[in-house]
């Protein structure tokens, strides 16, 4: 038999083969879900919620848990403290990525609170707090009635893809959705807030889990009596589905012991100026608090470049122990146009004898290259930084995507490169409320660039006049220079 006839036979078998229709449909849905899930860094600008990068966290979990286990074993004092604040191990796990906060707990800096409120089958208990004059981390437990827990499980087990297709109310992301902190006069405390870090599914399915919320005070705390108001959301906001809240307000009074942190702030004057490719950067002051360290940085007005950020910035002592910048939470504040305060994990309790600030590069661009102009209709870039890293622009399922050439070192870096406000050709200011950054792995067509990331914005609804002008807020162009400054 000739091979073509043999092939013909095989082909007949293949054409007659049973196709598992249902299983294939399922695989297609999963593929679409997977694609949606890969839209990382989807972050809502309008709310203050800040989320972990899940992929990254899972890799570090094991090591950090191990450290905690060892810590309990070596410190009998700490072990007794563990029984003093019930559920402490779980709270330690919530702050495991911040060695300053971990060390604050280890040094018994945590205050027990233990107050709850209960409505609609949801009990919220504020268990404990780590507080200093700069910030407050509140640890809380959510506990659901059996009935509500079953509803949550049911909603979680429906595929998220299917759920996106129906506008039904779901309870799969039941969590604290809105918070207000009031002082003793009932006035709102000026603070930035962060809450509702993602809860692991298996915890949520038990109907009981712990989480944290953070308050970054705009002014130093002075009194100790506060009231917390909490609203609970049923699910995350999604395109086309408004976020829904339970009707009740959970009201929890909390008493903070301010004497625990009074006078703890330590200030070190630095006044060191470094020059990197003619750009002057001055490190003026370091302030050490129990929950974090703030380093004040000034950029000279005459600098030709705008500096977006430092790479690998860290504090290190003589023994090589390192304290990094804050990864989950407020990373920096900007009191003035050319002035930053960058936050680091605190070493308040470990008191290193000497301390150095070091980094090896900054991300920066000439100030006259910060605008990106795009003809959205024809998917053409009209103006972009001269280094040519923005390879192309396209309207994709995610939004307006820019394909940006990154360095090898940026493999795990997902920069949101644009400010969320932009302008159209008539000068109208528009605002995007969602951004994304994802790896762009090509499926094999030839001649594609490597290290491309797809970064962009979901454009605001409604009409606009082409072209649009975006402003860069970050960008993978570097000025390299190794810097090491003695700060203590």
């Amino acid at each position, binding site marked *: *038999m*000739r*091979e*073509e006839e*043999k*092939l*013909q*036979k*095989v*082909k007949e*078998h*293949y*054409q007659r*083969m049973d*196709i*598992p*229709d249902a*299983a*294939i*449909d*399922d*695989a*297609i*849905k*999963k*593929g*679409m879900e*997977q*694609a*949606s899930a*890969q839209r990382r860094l989807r972050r809502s600008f309008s709310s203050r919620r800040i989320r972990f990068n899940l992929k990254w966290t899972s890799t570090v979990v094991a090591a950090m848990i191990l450290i905690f286990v060892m810590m309990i074993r070596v410190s009998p004092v700490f072990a007794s403290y563990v029984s003093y604040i019930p559920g402490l191990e779980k709270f330690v796990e919530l702050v495991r990525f911040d060695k300053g906060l971990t060390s604050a707990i280890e040094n018994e800096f945590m205050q027990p609170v233990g107050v709850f409120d209960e409505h609609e089958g949801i009990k919220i208990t504020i268990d404990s707090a780590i507080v200093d004059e700069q910030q407050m981390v509140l640890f809380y437990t959510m506990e659901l009635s059996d009935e509500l827990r079953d509803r949550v499980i049911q909603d979680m087990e429906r595929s998220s*893809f299917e759920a*996106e*297709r129906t506008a039904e109310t779901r309870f799969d992301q039941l969590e604290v959705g809105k918070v207000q902190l009031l002082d003793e006069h009932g006035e709102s405390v000026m603070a930035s807030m962060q809450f509702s870090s993602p809860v692991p599914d298996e915890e949520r399915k038990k109907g009981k889990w712990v989480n944290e919320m953070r308050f970054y005070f705009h002014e130093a705390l002075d009194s100790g009596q506060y009231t917390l108001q909490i609203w609970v959301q049923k699910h995350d906001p999604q395109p086309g589905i408004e976020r829904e809240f339970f009707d009740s307000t959970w009201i929890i009074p909390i008493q903070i012991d301010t004497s625990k942190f009074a006078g703890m702030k330590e200030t070190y004057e630095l006044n060191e100026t470094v020059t990197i490719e003619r750009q002057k950067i001055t490190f003026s002051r370091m302030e050490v608090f129990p929950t974090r360290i703030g380093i004040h940085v000034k950029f000279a007005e005459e600098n030709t470049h705008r500096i977006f950020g430092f790479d690998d910035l860290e504090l290190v002592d003589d023994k090589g122990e390192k304290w990094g910048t804050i990864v989950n939470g407020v990373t920096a504040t900007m009191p003035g146009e050319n002035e930053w305060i960058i936050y680091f994990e605190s070493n308040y309790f470990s008191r290193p004898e000497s301390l150095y600030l070091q980094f090896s590069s900054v991300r920066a661009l000439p100030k006259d290259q910060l605008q990106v102009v795009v003809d959205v209709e024809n998917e053409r870039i009209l103006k972009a930084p001269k280094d040519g890293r923005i390879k192309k622009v*396209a*309207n*994709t*399922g995610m939004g307006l*995507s820019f394909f940006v050439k990154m360095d090898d070192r940026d493999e795990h870096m997902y920069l949101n490169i644009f400010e969320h406000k932009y302008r159209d050709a008539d000068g109208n200011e528009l605002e995007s409320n969602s951004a994304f950054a994802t790896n*762009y792995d*090509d*499926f*094999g*067509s*030839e001649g594609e660039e490597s290290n491309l990331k797809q970064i962009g914005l979901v454009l605001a609804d409604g009409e606009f006049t082409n072209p649009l002008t975006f402003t860069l807020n970050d960008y993978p162009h570097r000025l390299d220079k190794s810097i090491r400054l003695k700060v203590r």
Partner: protein
Amino acid sequence: MHDEQLVIQAKNGDDDAFYEFIQNHKASLYRIAYAYFKNEQDALEAIQEVTCRAYHHIHKLKQPQFAATWLTRIMINYCADERRKRRRVQIHAEVSDLQPVTDRDRYQMIEVEQAVDQLNEKYRQVIILKYFEDLKIKDIAQALNQPEGTVKTRLNKGLRLLRRALGEKGGERNA
């Protein structure tokens, strides 16, 4: 609805249209994956991955009339990559669990499948698309992003290699 219309809608973010578009090609995609992996589980995984890639990259599809060949290309690329990865850990060629009518048929099928399996990837691709999926030379050329002439050359060479492989095996059997 037609592919072209579906793709245009999918590019505008219509998930239902995207789903329907993949649905229209699922049998063909499944068979190609099956030809490579010879089992249902891996073929389904391939469909999931290909769907995911297509979803990410559908904006790149400038000419919706080539949507079908574009999907085929993603699948072929996935299969080839996956095969290359698996080769390193796997020695035995897999045999499909399809159930041919007679033992003789079954024997021949295994023989052919194994022979195709041994081919260099560039010949395997064209043989699978031409003889298992019955695509026209023109469509194969598009799916593989190669000139038609190249596809024809590879088909001829592939068939010659198959003939030799099958012939040698036949020889052993008679001996």
